[in-house]
């Protein structure tokens, strides 16, 4: 079900002061593809997401989405072009209820008329409908992550980047989120999954990319990538 090239990143690089967080990252993603992105802590995964989403201005390289150049576009423009992301540390709108949190993207995506209905649908998908009237601070960490997801899928994205959406979940809950992501994917959304839960990554991804110290060191079928000795050395450890 994968189609043409959706996202293309070329030679993306990012520095913080003298510290090189990302260097020469090339990446291509086909429409509807399921990509896993793994790497040790601090290897630059979230930084890469931020460069793609427009949160950080990359120092080098360029990114295109569906053929359109993203450089210089602000995050909200990229979001409107179909690029949704979740934050590794949940970033809810603290004074708005859970429902309103999800309505916000809809109001600005031309769906103001039936925003409430659509927002409830999204909440149902992440199983938060029962907490629609709660304030985010009344949710657990994990529920806040699900709220992140709900807000992201409300945009009906072409590409969803889930930055550790499953951290801290139990086996069964991971399965729930995986099912949700699969449903989305089946409807045509490409997904980049950043995750340290290997079971989730291997079950979900068609393809796996590994970052180490700001560089891409592997790209390919999950089984092959995970078998690489350098991936085991830097990331997996002896299992």
């Amino acid at each position: 079900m994968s189609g043409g090239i959706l996202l293309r990143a070329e030679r993306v690089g990012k520095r913080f002061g003298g510290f090189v967080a990302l260097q020469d990252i090339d990446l291509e993603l086909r429409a509807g593809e399921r990509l896993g992105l793994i790497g040790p802590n601090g290897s630059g995964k979230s930084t890469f997401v931020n460069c793609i989403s427009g949160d950080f201005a990359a120092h080098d390289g360029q990114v295109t989405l569906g053929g359109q150049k993203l450089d210089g576009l602000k995050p909200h423009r990229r979001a409107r072009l179909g690029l949704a992301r979740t934050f590794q540390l949940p970033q809810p709108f603290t004074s708005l209820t859970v429902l309103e949190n999800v309505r916000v993207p809809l109001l600005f995506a031309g769906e103001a008329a039936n925003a409430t209905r659509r927002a409830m649908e999204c909440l149902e998908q992440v199983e938060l409908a029962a907490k629609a009237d709660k304030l985010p601070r009344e949710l657990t960490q994990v529920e806040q992550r699900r709220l992140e997801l709900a807000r992201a899928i409300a945009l009906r994205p072409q590409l969803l980047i889930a930055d550790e959406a499953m951290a801290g979940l139990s086996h069964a809950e991971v399965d729930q989120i995986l099912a949700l992501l699969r449903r989305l994917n089946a409807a045509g959304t490409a997904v980049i999954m950043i995750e340290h839960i290997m079971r989730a990554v291997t079950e979900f991804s068609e393809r796996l990319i590994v970052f180490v110290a700001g560089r891409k060191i592997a790209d390919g079928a999950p089984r092959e990538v995970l078998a690489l000795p350098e991936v085991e050395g830097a990331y997996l450890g002896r299992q």
Partner: protein
Amino acid sequence: MSATTLPAPAMPTARLHLSYWLGAGALAVALILLLRLIGNEYGWYAGYFVLQYVVLAAAWNILGGYAGYVNFGAAGFMATGSYTTIVLYEALGLGVIPGILGAAVVAGLLGLGTGYLTLRLRGVYFSIATLSLSVVLQTIVVNWDYVGGSRGAYIIRPMEVPPFASYGEYIFVVMLVLAVIAVGIGRTVEFSRLGRGLQAIRDNERAAEAVGVPTLRLKLIATTLSGALMGVAGAPLPFYAGYLNPEGAFNLAYAVNAIAMPLIGGAGTWLGPVIGAVLLATLQQAATVTISSALNLWIVGWMLVIFVALFPRGILGWFRRR
């Protein structure tokens, strides 16, 4: 920040807005009739004093209440409005109404400029930047001879403006109309997606951007609107007093009240600033005319402290909580 989410309006918004304009209009007419009945000039002047703060507080609230960008430079914006009126009067001999329109444009542009500050400055940094802006503006006015510099500018206002009984009544009615409009704009903002977007910005600007909220555009709209309305609040002042000098125009009281009034009434709601302004300004006016000593300011200070202490989420927030 005090606001929590409002329930989505139950009535269709169009009807909701219509009922505001009708209600506010009726209230305004009733107020005018009442003051006419009382029939003394002081009513108009004291009323003007209170209403200018209603406009100012409603204006500040658009940026400060909804988007959480605290403007310390309200006095600067207000003075921009006042001095626009003076320039138009000096240059073209124009009266209050053109002055107000001019003030809206000039102060709105200044607000737009301030909006670009929000690109990089958040929180207190933004606040101090607006404060600095106000200092810079004051220095410019003080050194600008055309508007009288530090010596101030005189405006010879007409003795009467038919059909109004007196100039006091006229300037009051003008301010009343401005107040109804300013509060109406604040209210429209609140119930529109602009308001919701601003709230999202206040809570988490980065997340708002990420879910497709055009944060810069919304902030620019908010700073422009807020700036324009603050300018409008100050525009009639030279005609009200017949004279204005920089010290009066940039008075600390404006900056303080612009913040304190919405907070006390309930920031981030359209009605809050109105309640706060009416309450605090009436109190200030009453203290000034009843206590003929320095004690009046002292009492106003205590009132401020007591009100915020009693109603930490504003008076409106306090009622909501019940």
